[in-house]
């Protein structure tokens, strides 16, 4: 028994050291972002700023419209997530409980999309939007949400598990499919909605290539691409401000993670095991 306890402490110790090594880059970046000495050269390693300052954050916020990037990203992420999750549930419900001609065909039709990487159809899609005059708008970034294929697949599995007896009693009360969907299925699917929303928010927030291609004006840009502007224009120097930008842009997801960590970790684990 005693030996087991010692082993457990040794493992905890190893994990702890490993964790410190893993998180060290972040700690250092935070320290640099508050360090007045980190400007044209990197100061020697220290987790405490040599000359503490908020200067780097001032530079970051005055030279880049970070607040605008934030708001833009929040708008796009929110719209895309709401659309994606709601329409995924609609399709999931139809595939789980519906009886209609062509059900299997349309299901395969949707699943097949998972085999087509977005990147391989990006160019024609871009030209399509260009011809419609929709470049530099949020439409191309959002309307993909009308078909969230992984979500549809996942929603079907979950809604399938809702007992039919609930639907039948609603039928007797004269409810139609839409009312059943809105008043019974959605309230019963809150964990499913949470999981899909989390997956959507994470992938939207870090989405890079598509906004890079679609959005042209600086004032409409999203945070992921906006942050990298800082890198391209201030190539080798301004370490402190760059770290300030990196820290600021990582804060929202960090907060989201700290608040919802249990659900996020669960959602990711589920998405990787129910293969």
């Amino acid at each position, binding site marked *: 028994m005693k030996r087991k306890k010692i082993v*457990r402490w040794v493992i905890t110790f*190893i*994990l702890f050291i490993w*964790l410190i090594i*893993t*998180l060290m*880059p*972040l700690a*250092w*970046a935070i320290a640099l972002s508050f360090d007045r000495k980190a400007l044209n050269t*990197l100061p*020697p*390693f220290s987790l405490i700023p040599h000359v503490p300052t908020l200067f780097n954050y001032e530079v970051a916020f005055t030279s880049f419209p970070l607040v605008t990037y934030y708001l833009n990203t929040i708008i796009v992420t929110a719209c895309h997530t709401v659309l994606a999750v709601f329409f995924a549930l*609609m*399709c999931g*419900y*139809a595939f789980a409980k519906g*009886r*209609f001609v062509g059900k299997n065909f349309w299901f395969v039709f*949707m699943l097949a*999309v998972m*085999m087509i*990487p*977005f*990147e*391989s*159809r*990006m*160019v*024609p899609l871009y*030209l*399509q939007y260009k011809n419609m005059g929709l470049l530099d708008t949020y439409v191309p970034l959002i*309307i*993909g949400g*009308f*078909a969230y294929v992984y979500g*549809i697949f996942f929603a079907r599995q979950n809604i399938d598990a809702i007992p039919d007896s609930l639907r039948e009693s609603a039928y007797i009360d004269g409810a139609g499919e839409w009312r059943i969907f809105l008043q019974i299925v959605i309230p019963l699917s809150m964990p499913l909605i949470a999981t899909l929303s989390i997956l959507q928010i994470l992938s939207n927030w*870090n989405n*890079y*290539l598509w906004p890079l291609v679609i959005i042209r004006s600086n004032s409409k840009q999203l*945070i*992921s691409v906006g*942050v*990298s*502007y*800082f890198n*391209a224009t201030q190539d080798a120097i301004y*370490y402190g401000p760059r*770290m300030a*930008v*990196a*820290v600021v*842009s990582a804060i929202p997801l960090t907060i989201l*993670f700290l608040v919802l960590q*249990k659900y*996020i970790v669960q959602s*990711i684990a589920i998405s*990787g*095991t129910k*293969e």
Partner: protein
Amino acid sequence: MMQQRSKRNFRVREQLIWYSFLITSILTLILLTYIPMLTAVKYSFYDVSVLGFGDDVFVGFQNYQKLINNSSFLNSIKNTFLLAVMGLLSIPIGFILATLINSLGRGQRQNFFRVAFYFPNIITGASVVLIFQIVLKANNGLLNNALSFLVGQNVKIGWLSDSSYSRWGATILHLWGSIGYSMLINLANLQSIPENLYEAAEVDGANGLQKWFHITIPQMTSCFVFLFITSMIGGLSRFTDLFIIGGNTSAGRPGGTLQTILMYIYQFSFEAPQYGIASAGAIILFLLTFIITLINLKITGFFKKEKKGGKVREA
């Protein structure tokens, strides 16, 4: 007669109601996935200039021929696969990490490590690249500082600026973000191995190593396959971090060592537009992804059969 008719009307109505749930997504997929995909196939056989859509010339397989004879395209394929394979290191490392965390037993300590080690995966994105550009810097970078301390000599490797180390630098950056994910999936699968398998083995007098070899590893195979496939597919379309490392260009700096297929496609789509060439590249990317997915289906089906064959029970 009347009754039959109303019954049929009812059926049609029911059908329409169900289709009303689906129609938006179906149309979206047709317009945003199937048509662009077919268009990409079409473009790949045409000489599509930047401006003209009307007078594109059918050129057969010329675009593909140009690509296959183009050393920088072949180089981008090589880079993509090298980087994807190096990225697979996240699977064994994640597995070791998951095994350590799992051995703590369920409880607060386990939850803490599970969440803390997963955290880097959440913030992976442009900001992490900015941070790692400094961590991996030649002068005073965090990694070189640590190595200098360990070796006792001044290490000055330009992990992201020296073309002979850049793939390792890019892999370190990638692993930092992906080990947490691999750990999480490994852990979830480790914990879903039925406890009674281990108990039965203990009754048969198996020691820890034997249990690990005969129960854990066979039970984890489908998890490894899943991670292998997702990691490879993700690796094939790697773009963001390498694009930012190259100073927001798709040239794959330093020295083209970090140009992936997708960066090559980007180059011929948006930097020096030649949509025919770009589309041919996109179709090749699609085919590579498709092949890996097919292998996946084959392998997972294969393992399902194996499990039923009772190999696991014997252990």
